[in-house]
């Protein structure tokens, strides 16, 4: 279905581009037609000294990465704006401070010139440190701007060598900026510590972590991730819920994101007309190590504080999100009590979101956990007057009862008419 909409969007874009081309031969209307920004991907490649190790399909890790990059650059969809950033590519020395600032933009994020990008990749040779944190920050800056989906693909062969800046926290902060950025990580021939660090980075932003031992795996996965960036998705709107209903922002149908700190609550308001149904669902993401048991509660409350309906969920064990939802059909207004003219007044429903995640010990509690809220206000449902459809019956008992009753009624009717006939005759 997504492909269909994409196709439709593409056709639409093509048509619009054609019209625009006809109207303004100078061609100023780029990117405008669909109202959607191009998806952006920044490939961040580790070019630290350890990439010289020969353990991927008999070649160096660097060679594998270069080969994979060449294939990925060939396969990148047209609509994706791709950039390449390196880390540890320039400074070969031992000065930690300088080594940890060593990240450079190899190819800027923008429309892709494949030959140019490939030439740039070919010049790389394994050199320096592994400053993952600073590289991620810089990559986030590279992707700044536009409302399309943004993705960083980090390819590394070692854990960050630039403590105390924890790349995992950096990732979380980038995600908390609310620019809808996902970081996917790939570990080349990883060890345990690196797996943990890279998967922590990925989890912090809702991305994925993959271990890579062969060149084709690397190519496959990076291609898959770039393609994924090209899939059109709805970008959520950042909002900020309040601590109480009175101060809460009023939301319309849409998809929203917010951050909710541990032990806090978030309130939102939605206006629902009589005869409409409010559908709300919320998911709270676990973007860091959390205690094994957790839950989420979504309540719909009137402005006076009476609870209308709630959705709740609890879980335990490893998870990415915990989610729940609720429906609130507001009854059609009776025609009689319309004292405020023809237009029925909308009811303000307050939505309260609380979660019971607890941060694992030693994990920073700010920024809050990512929260995703979907609000849909649709026409109300048809009312049910009966348990069964239209009150109809079904089954052998029904047939038995109907036959019996019919038979008895026939008998009765027969006797009655005989009796009446007899009475008439005797008279």
């Amino acid at each position, binding site marked *: 279905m997504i492909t269909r909409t994409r196709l439709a969007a593409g056709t639409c874009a093509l048509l619009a581009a054609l019209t625009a081309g006809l109207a303004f031969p100078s061609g100023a209307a780029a990117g405008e037609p669909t109202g959607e920004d191009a998806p952006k991907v920044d490939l961040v490649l580790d070019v630290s000294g350890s990439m010289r190790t020969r353990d991927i399909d008999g070649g160096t890790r660097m060679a594998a990465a270069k080969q994979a990059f060449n294939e990925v650059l060939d396969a990148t969809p047209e609509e994706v704006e791709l950039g390449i950033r390196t880390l540890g590519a320039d400074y070969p020395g031992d000065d930690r401070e300088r080594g940890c600032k060593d990240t450079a933009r190899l190819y800027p994020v923008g429309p892709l010139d494949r030959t140019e990008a490939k030439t740039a990749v070919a010049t790389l040779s394994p050199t320096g440190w592994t400053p993952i944190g600073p590289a991620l920050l810089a990559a986030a800056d590279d992707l700044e701007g536009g409302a399309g989906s943004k993705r960083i693909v980090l390819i590394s062969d070692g854990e960050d060598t630039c403590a105390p800046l924890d790349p995992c926290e950096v990732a979380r902060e980038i995600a908390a900026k609310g620019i809808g950025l996902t970081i996917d990580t790939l570990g080349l021939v990883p060890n345990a510590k690196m797996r*943990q660090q890279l998967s922590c980075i990925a989890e912090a932003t809702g991305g*994925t972590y993959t271990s890579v031992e062969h060149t084709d795996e690397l190519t496959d996965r990076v291609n898959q991730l770039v393609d994924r960036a090209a899939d059109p998705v709805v970008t959520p709107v950042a909002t900020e819920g309040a601590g109480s209903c009175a101060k809460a922002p009023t939301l319309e149908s849409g998809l929203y994101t917010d951050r909710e700190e541990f032990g806090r609550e978030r309130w939102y308001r939605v206006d629902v007309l009589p005869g409409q149904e409010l559908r709300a669902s919320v998911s709270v993401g676990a973007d860091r190590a959390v205690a094994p048991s957790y839950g989420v509660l979504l309540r719909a409350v009137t402005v006076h504080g009476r609870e209308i309906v709630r959705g709740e969920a609890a879980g335990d064990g490893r998870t990415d999100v915990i989610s729940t939802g609720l429906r609130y059909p507001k009854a059609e207004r009776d025609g009689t009590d319309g004292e405020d003219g023809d237009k029925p007044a909308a009811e303000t429903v307050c939505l309260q979101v609380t979660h019971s995640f607890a941060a694992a010990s030693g994990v920073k509690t700010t920024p809050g956990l990512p929260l995703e809220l979907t609000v849909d206000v649709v026409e109300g449902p048809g009312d049910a007057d009966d348990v069964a459809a239209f009150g109809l019956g079904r089954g052998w008992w029904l047939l038995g009862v109907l036959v019996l009753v019919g038979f008895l009624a026939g008998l009765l009717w027969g006797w009655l008419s005989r009796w009446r006939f007899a009475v008439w005759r005797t008279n």
Partner: protein
Amino acid sequence: MRAVRALSAAVLLLGLVATPAAADSSPSASPSGDGDAPTTAGTSFRTATEIEQGRRATAKAAAGDYLYWSFPADAGQRPTVRATVRLPERHAAQTWQVDVYDGLRRRQACQWGAQTRTAAADASSVELACVLRTVRAWSEPWANDPLPGTYYVRLTALDLPTSDLGARVGAEIEVGSKDMGGAAAVDGSLSEPLVPGVAMASGAAKDGEDRGAVLSAIEPEDGWSSGWWSDRWVWTGIGGVLAALAGVGGYALTRGSGRPSRVPPGA
């Protein structure tokens, strides 16, 4: 009289033929060609890959990924989700789980099926299944009953030793459903199926703008059922006809041959 009898016999016969046909609960999952079955999976509710019922979708993934698919389920269906995870050659024991969520992202219970299963260290694959409750056309807002709309499947490893994190796995998923017939036909209906973003989509259609992406644009192959037909109509109809026939029969019993017995034959 003969015509009436013939007609009623015909109606009865028709009813008897129609009832089992309508009540027959045959699995509606008819695997069609794998032509364009999806080969990827989403990584969140928002990016879930849409699949059709009866179609086998595959995905290459890394252990530790949260894989999301979504499928449509209509009233009267009892969906079954089957997932197979192909594990790499070397791995430690790991537990996999499949979870199903409805269009409101509420977790839906599995009636039966191995929703969570632990693969031994040498197992090459692990198979999971989840049989949902029957989807109802309507339920009270306070209930958690499955309603027509989008359903999300999440497949993930529950506990992974660090050594297996990020290892390549293959995932296959197939959703079939059993048609539960009129026994599950309830009164009432939703104005819109429980498809996330349905209000936004219809709003956009009204504005005439093309948003390109929607949260969920899922629909069963032959559209959402209008919800008025169920085999309860047949049962009730046959019941009515049978009652009428029984009534005629009962009446006839009291009349004997049609002449009062006291009236002499020659009168």
